[in-house]
């Protein structure tokens, strides 16, 4: 069974505002066209009862309690299901098929302003350190939004250090990582700068007011042997992204990040701008590129979230407003189509609000993702 109806797809692309050429015969087959199966792997709810899985990261190495290939997942909600109160990172082993709690931090840490609500900003270094963002609340709404922090765990799930400073405001989307072992560069999207209260409404849209203060922060790390990573410098490489409070989904702002194949360009999802942008010279630049250059906008995108790079070099972008993953060419912006990986009709449109984290499987023949509606990790495969 084919995943796309190619004719339908061509019709869709023809309808897009910009006439995008259909992909040529010499181009790689769309990755999503090879994906034919999906199945639930495990419930992501740990013993603590945390809910709402966000980040999905595949462990690059074996270290401590983590085996290479394990899937690490954050939970954004606590036992009482309030958003921004989740305190656990769980570990799914594809070998044993079991889920265990990797890390469980207290709800309040003095060094993390506003408390703990673990977000999609999760990554694991080759040296075994696990770094995760907190975009916290105490009542499940942005009324009590805290500045948050980044937390660093050792590979046994013990908290090693935390980072909080003026550049860190609700680390939000998936982390882009360049890891050289003894040094590393992280890119983290920040969506919590001066977010107006929910009650302040835009008279035109009726939504809470959007402020264009979201950023992407580059953090260079040095990783001394046997010691936690240390920030050597940090630079805002992009700023001016829309961010706002949301009654239902908590926070909307810049989210997904992934490095381009050239090793220097960074792609970012601008959720409120409904676009994917490119930030040039992201690894080296000393100033901000603003909101970067538009790569792909509107079309099949519906408030884009996590971005991952497929083995064929295309970008996979998850939609917030429906249960689809969109594949697009980062060089041309061409959107190849979308696959409905969560079609739960309990939301409207189906899958609305269900997706957030996605990671390509180590063998490149599929991807892992979470469904918030059923608190589960799934895989989509050939």
């Amino acid at each position, binding site marked *: *069974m084919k995943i796309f109806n190619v004719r339908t797809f061509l019709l869709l692309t023809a309808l897009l505002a910009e006439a995008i050429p259909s992909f040529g015969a010499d181009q790689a087959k769309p990755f999503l066209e090879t994906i034919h199966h999906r*199945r639930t792997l495990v419930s992501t*709810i740990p013993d603590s009862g945390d809910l709402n899985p966000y980040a999905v990261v595949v462990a690059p190495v074996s270290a401590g309690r983590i085996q290479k290939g394990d899937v690490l997942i954050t939970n954004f909600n606590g036992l009482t299901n309030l958003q921004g109160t989740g305190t656990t990172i769980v570990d799914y082993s594809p070998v044993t098929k079991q889920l265990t709690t990797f890390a469980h931090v207290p709800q309040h840490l003095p060094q993390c302003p506003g408390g703990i609500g673990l977000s999609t900003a999760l990554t694991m270094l080759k040296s075994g350190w696990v770094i995760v963002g907190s975009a916290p609340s105490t009542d499940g709404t942005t009324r009590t939004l805290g500045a948050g922090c980044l937390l660093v765990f050792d590979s046994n799930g013990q908290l090693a250090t935390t980072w909080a400073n003026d550049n860190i405001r609700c680390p939000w989307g998936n982390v882009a990582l360049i890891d050289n072992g003894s040094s590393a560069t992280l890119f983290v999207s920040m969506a919590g700068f001066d977010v107006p209260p929910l009650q302040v409404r835009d008279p035109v849209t009726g939504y809470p007011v959007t402020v264009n203060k979201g950023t992407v922060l580059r953090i260079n790390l040095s990783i001394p042997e046997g010691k936690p990573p240390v920030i050597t410098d940090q630079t805002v490489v992009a700023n001016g992204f829309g961010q706002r409070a949301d009654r239902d989904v908590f926070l909307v702002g810049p989210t997904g990040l992934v490095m381009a194949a050239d090793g220097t360009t960074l792609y970012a999802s601008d959720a409120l701008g409904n676009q994917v942008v490119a930030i040039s010279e992201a690894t080296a630049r000393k100033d901000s590129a603003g909101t970067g250059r538009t790569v792909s906008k509107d079309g099949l995108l519906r408030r884009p979230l996590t971005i991952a790079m497929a083995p064929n070099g295309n970008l996979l972008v998850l939609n917030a407003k429906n249960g689809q993953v969109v594949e697009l060419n980062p060089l041309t912006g061409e959107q190849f189509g979308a696959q409905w990986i969560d079609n739960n009709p309990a939301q409207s449109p189906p899958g609305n609000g269900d997706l957030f984290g996605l990671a390509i499987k180590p063998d490149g023949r599929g991807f892992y993702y979470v469904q918030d509606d059923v608190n589960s990790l799934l895989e989509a495969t050939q």
Partner: protein
Amino acid sequence: MNWLRNHQQYLVRCIALLALGPLGSSAAGFVASAQSAPAKDVVTSNWGKPLDPNQVEPFWAEHQGGIETKPQHFTYFAAFDLTTKNREEVIKLLKAWTAASARMSEGQTAQPLESGLQLAVAPVAPKGGDAEDAPDPGSRAADTGEVLGMPASRLTVTFGFGAGLFIKDGKDRYGLAARRPEALVDMPNFGSIDQMVPEHTGGDLAIQASAEDPQVAFHAVRQLARIAEGVAQIRWVQTGYRPTAGDRHLLGFSAEEKIPGMNAPQSQAVWAGKEGPDWMRGGSYVVVRRIRFALEHWDQMPQTYQEAALGEMKHPNMPEDHSQTKVKSSLDNVVTEDSTPPHLAIVIPGRDAMLRRSYSYNDGVNFTTERWPPWRQGLEYDAGMFFICFQRDPRTGFIPVFRELANHDSRLNQFWTHVGGGLFAIPPGAKQGEYIGQALFEAR
């Protein structure tokens, strides 16, 4: 004859829908086989017979009332924390509760009106100069009076013992820890459906007062709580009601109506036997759960979704929903290896392991956050089901069935949350002159 034809078509639709799930074939098989003659010791064999709503239900009996009793239309459930440290005071409380309940079951006041209120345990007078401030319960009325002149209304009062009676915070307050039945387990967490609020969960003692009149049910608990002053205090309460006809819950369905034998367990599944302590023989174990339904969200679902989720058709008079194609997205051509069984297909295999005697509840509106995308927050109905089930052992009754639900009922799990409840050992009934739970305290 038209009715009959409709009913037959309806049953066919039910069976067809059940067959959607992996358990469908066995479930459909059950529908057919359950129409054979029921066994004689089915505990609910009297439930189909009409009853006088004013009548007296027996209090002194082998089993406590309110279990195999045909469900009354209203219930008032209360869990209590014991505040006394004294074993004798617990016994006095149970004696006083037993006597008052027997009287109220016959339509009498809780205590004789002539003598004023008699607390289960008389208050200790303060020492020294405050002696004149000592409360005088005898100056209060023996009964609060709101059901004077009313009939017995089929009142039953059922008493349960929570784990806290046996051991609490590691303390054996009443010398009963060694007599805690193994079946009175600590309830596991059913992650995907549980959001248990501590203030609405647990308790050392429980009272289920059920009647054909809501004031009669509340009156019973109100009197018993009064008598308990100084010994036990209310921890949480829950009201419940059943519709005057049928037994549809607030999602709009009724398994009992549509699946013959859905609620007809054999007595051996309900009453504790030799496997446990002697003092529990002839008793039972009750699991109660306050299950909040996301009704606003549910009401936006197409009928096809609702019917697929429950595994039954809504009602013979409801027209078929013509939006069936919407349930499976036409955009999705990927083979999913997950098959989601309907609710009924999950619960039917465990149907004989417990006696379900549930009520709906409706507690107004309050601010809440739904547990599922799109994560709506706001004022929503605080309404749903007060699920009640009696069984010989929750480890073979409620727990395995609800573990299956938590793991596999993903369509329905997006619309309900278990927010409170408890597990209580229900001792057997008492003979006249005895008190409920006597064998527990007098066992050697």
